[in-house]
C-alpha cells in the first residue's frame, strides 16, 4: 500500500503544477501588480510593525509577545487567514515548547491548537490554565466551545455554568444555550437566550454578534426560519466581518433554496475556503458559468493543503466531494474521518448524506447511535434519518 500512495503522491505532484499553474514568467512591465497584500487597518498595522520590531529586539518580553499574539489571533479569526496563526505562534516561540509555559502563552497555544483541530492538545492547555487560574473566564469559554464542537455537551454545560458564576452573563448564557440546544432542549434554550439578549447591557460587538449567530442557528435547527432569518440579519447589521457568520448564513440561505442571495453575499469574498465552497454550491444551484472555475479553484486549494500533509479541512472537503465533485465514496471516507474529530450537526449530516449517496447506509451507524443518545435536534437531519431507516 505505501507504494500505491507514493504513486498517487507522485502523480499529484506531477499533475498539479501542470493544471493549476501557468508556467513561471517574466512580467512585461515594472508596474504590473503581482500581489495585493491584505488591507487591514493601516494604523493598527503600523503599530503592529513597531511592536514586532520591539519584540525582535527583546524576544523574552512576555507581555509584549502575548499582546502581539493576541492581536494576530484576532486578525486570523476575522480574516480566516491561517498565516496569522503562524505569526502568532512565532511571537510566543520563546515559551512554545516549554513544559509549563506561562498561562498567557498557554491561552495563545490553546487557541492555535483549536484552529488546527488539535482539540486534545487545546483542552490540555486549557486545563493547565484553569489549574493555575480557576477564574479565567476566557479559558472556561474556549473550553466550553471545544467541548461542544466535540459533542461533549455535559462537559460543555459544566464549563458554561462556571463561566456564569464568574459573572460573564451574556457569554455564559450563550454558551449554555448553545450546548443545551444541541442536547435536546432547543426550545427552552432559545427562549432563555432571547430574553437574556433583550435585557442585556452588553455592548461588546463581538459578543453580541456571537449571541445573535447562536440564536439564529438554534432557530434554524428548530425550523423557525423567520426568527433565524431575523437574527442572521441583526448579526449582519453589526457590520463586523466574521467568516463564521457568513458561512452559517450562507448555509441557511442554501437550505432555503435562495442561492442567488448567497452569490450576491459571497461573490467578492472568496479568499476563505469555506466561503468559496458555499459560493460554488450556490452557483451550482443558479447554474452560473463561474461554477467550473470555482470548482477547479477549490480542488487546487484542497490539493495545496494535501501537499502540506494536513487535513484540517475534512468537513469542507467532504462537502466538496459530496455536493460538487460528486465523489460520494471519497466524501464518506472524509466525513467519517472528520466525525472522529468533531461532532457538530453538520458533521453528522455529512456522514448521513454521504452514506446514502454512496449506497453504504451501514457506514452511518456510529452517527445514528450517537444521535439517538444525545437527542440532537436539527430540522435538517430527519429526512436523511428517514431514508436511512427505510434502507
Amino acid at each position, binding site marked *: 500500500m505505501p507504494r500505491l500512495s507514493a504513486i498517487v*503522491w*507522485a502523480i499529484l*505532484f*506531477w499533475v498539479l503544477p501542470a493544471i*493549476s*499553474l*501557468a*508556467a*513561471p*514568467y*517574466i*512580467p512585461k*512591465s*515594472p*508596474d*504590473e*501588480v*503581482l*500581489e*495585493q*497584500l*491584505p*488591507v487591514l487597518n493601516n494604523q493598527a498595522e503600523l503599530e503592529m510593525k513597531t511592536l514586532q520590531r520591539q519584540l525582535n529586539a527583546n524576544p523574552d518580553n512576555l507581555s509584549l509577545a502575548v499582546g502581539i499574539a493576541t492581536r494576530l489571533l484576532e486578525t486570523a479569526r476575522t*480574516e*480566516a*487567514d*491561517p*498565516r496569522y*496563526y*503562524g*505569526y502568532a*505562534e*512565532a511571537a510566543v*516561540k520563546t515559551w*512554545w515548547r516549554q513544559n509549563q509555559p506561562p498561562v498567557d502563552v498557554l491561552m495563545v497555544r490553546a487557541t492555535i491548537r483549536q484552529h488546527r483541530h488539535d482539540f486534545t492538545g487545546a483542552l490540555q492547555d486549557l486545563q493547565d490554565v484553569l489549574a493555575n487560574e480557576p477564574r479565567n473566564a476566557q479559558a472556561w469559554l474556549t473550553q466550553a466551545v471545544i467541548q461542544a464542537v466535540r459533542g461533549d455537551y455535559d462537559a460543555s454545560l459544566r464549563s458554561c455554568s462556571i463561566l456564569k458564576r464568574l459573572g460573564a452573563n451574556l457569554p455564559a448564557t450563550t454558551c449554555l444555550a448553545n450546548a443545551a440546544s444541541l442536547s435536546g432542549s432547543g426550545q427552552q434554550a432559545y427562549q432563555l437566550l432571547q430574553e437574556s439578549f433583550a435585557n442585556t447591557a452588553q455592548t461588546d460587538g463581538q459578543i453580541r454578534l456571537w449571541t445573535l449567530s447562536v440564536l439564529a442557528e438554534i432557530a434554524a435547527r428548530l425550523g423557525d426560519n423567520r426568527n433565524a432569518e431575523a437574527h442572521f440579519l441583526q448579526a449582519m447589521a453589526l457590520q463586523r466581518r466574521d467568516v463564521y457568520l457568513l458561512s452559517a448564513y450562507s448555509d441557511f440561505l442554501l437550505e432555503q433554496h435562495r442561492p442567488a442571495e448567497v452569490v450576491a453575499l459571497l461573490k*467578492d*469574498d*472568496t*479568499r*476563505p*475556503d469555506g466561503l*468559496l465552497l458555499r459560493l460554488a454550491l450556490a452557483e451550482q444551484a443558479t447554474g452560473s458559468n463561474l461554477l467550473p472555475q470555482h470548482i477547479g*479553484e477549490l480542488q*487546487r*486549494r484542497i490539493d*495545496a*493543503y494535501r*501537499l*502540506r*500533509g*494536513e487535513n484540517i479541512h475534512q468537513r469542507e472537503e467532504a462537502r466538496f466531494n459530496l455536493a460538487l465533485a460528486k465523489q460520494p465514496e471519497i466524501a464518506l471516507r472524509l466525513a467519517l474521518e472528520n466525525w472522529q474529530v468533531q461532532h457538530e450537526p453538520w458533521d453528522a449530516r455529512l456522514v448521513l448524506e454521504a452514506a446514502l449517496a454512496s449506497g453504504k447506509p451501514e457506514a452511518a451507524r456510529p452517527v445514528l447511535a450517537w444521535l439517538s443518545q444525545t437527542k440532537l435536534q436539527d430540522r435538517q437531519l430527519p429526512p436523511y434519518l428517514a431514508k436511512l431507516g427505510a434502507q
Partner: protein
Amino acid sequence: MRILLAICFGLLAMPVLAHKPSDSYLSISVQEQTVSGQWDIALRDLDYALGLDDNGDNRITWGEAQQHQAQIDAYALAHLAISTKHQVCRLAPVNHQVDKHTDGAYAVLQFAVVCPTAVRVLSVDYRLFFDLDPSHRGLLRLQNQGQTQTAVLSPEQPMRELQLGTRSNWRAFSEFAQEGVWHIWIGYDHILFLISLLLPAVLWRVDSGWQPVRQFRTAFIEVAKIVTAFTLAHSITLSLATLQVLNVPSRWVESAIAASVLLAALNNIYPLVLKRIWLVAFGFGLIHGLGFASVLTDLGLPGDALALALVGFNLGVEAGQFAIVTVFLPLAFYLRQTWYYQRLTVGIGSWLIAVVAVFWLLDRSLDLGWAQLI
C-alpha cells in the same frame, strides 16, 4: 492564453486568492551530475520578512520585486543549505521569474547547485521563514531522471537526505563494481578466509610436516581451483539473496562467516581436510555470498538495473579477490621453502587468524559490540 488571462485579471482589478498557510515550493532536479533548483516563494511572505512594498500602497509590483531581487536571493539562500556527503554545495542564482499559485504571486528563483563532489546523496537543510511563521512548510520535490521524490520540510524536520538512484546503466554497473572491490578490500573476514585456504596451497603435507610444491603450475592450479570454487559459491548465494529467493538473518550469516575463518585457520594447524580444499572453499563460499548480499542490499539497489548492479558488484568482488591472489601467489611461491613461511606464516599466522576469528565469532553471535570499540 497568457494575454487573455492578463486581460481578465485587468478587468477584475485583482484576482482574489485563497487564504492558505504559508508554503514554498522547492524543486531540485538532477541530470547526470548537473543539479539545479527552482524555488517558488510567496511574495506575501517575502514582504512580511523583508518589506517589499516600498510605496506602501499594499500592492507589490514587478518593479518593487526587482528592486529587492538581490535582497531576496541573499535572504532565501541564507536559509537553505544543500550538501552532498558533508560537503556544502554552492547555490548560485540564475534567473528570476514570477508565478501564480492558489494563494497569490510567488517569486520564482532559479539557481544552480554546484557541488564539490559527485552527487549520490543530497542533503537539504531548509530554514526559510520558520522563525517568522512556524507553520510555514517547505514542499520539496526532487526530480532525478524521471523519478520524483517529495518531502515536507518543517521546523521539526528541516532536513532531508535524498538518495539519488544511480540511473545511467553504465554508471550503476561501474559504481557497484567499485563497491564490490571496496568491500573485499575492507572485508577482512573474506580476505582472511581466502588467505587461510591459500596459505598451504604452495605446500603439501608429508608426515605432519610441510613440503614445498615443486612446480609453480601445481600451486597455480590449486589456487585457481580454490578461488574458482569460492567465487562460484558466493555468486550463487549472492544472487539468490539479492533476488530475495533466500533470506537468512544477518547475525547468523556474520557469525557463520567468522566460524568459517576459524575453521579454515585451524585446518592449517591441525589439518583435517588436505585434499579437495576447493570443496571447503565452495561450502563456506555459500555463506560468504550471503554476507556480500547484505552489503549490496544496504547500498540500495536500483529497481530497474538490478541485474547490472548484481553483476557489477560480483565482478568487483572477483576483481578484488584477483588482486589479492596475484600479490599472494608469486610471493608465497617464492618464499614457500623458507622457514618463516612454513613456521611463521602458516603456523603462527594461522593461529593469529584463528584468534581474530574467535573474537569475531563471539562478538557477532552474542552481539557484544566489540567491533565498534576498536
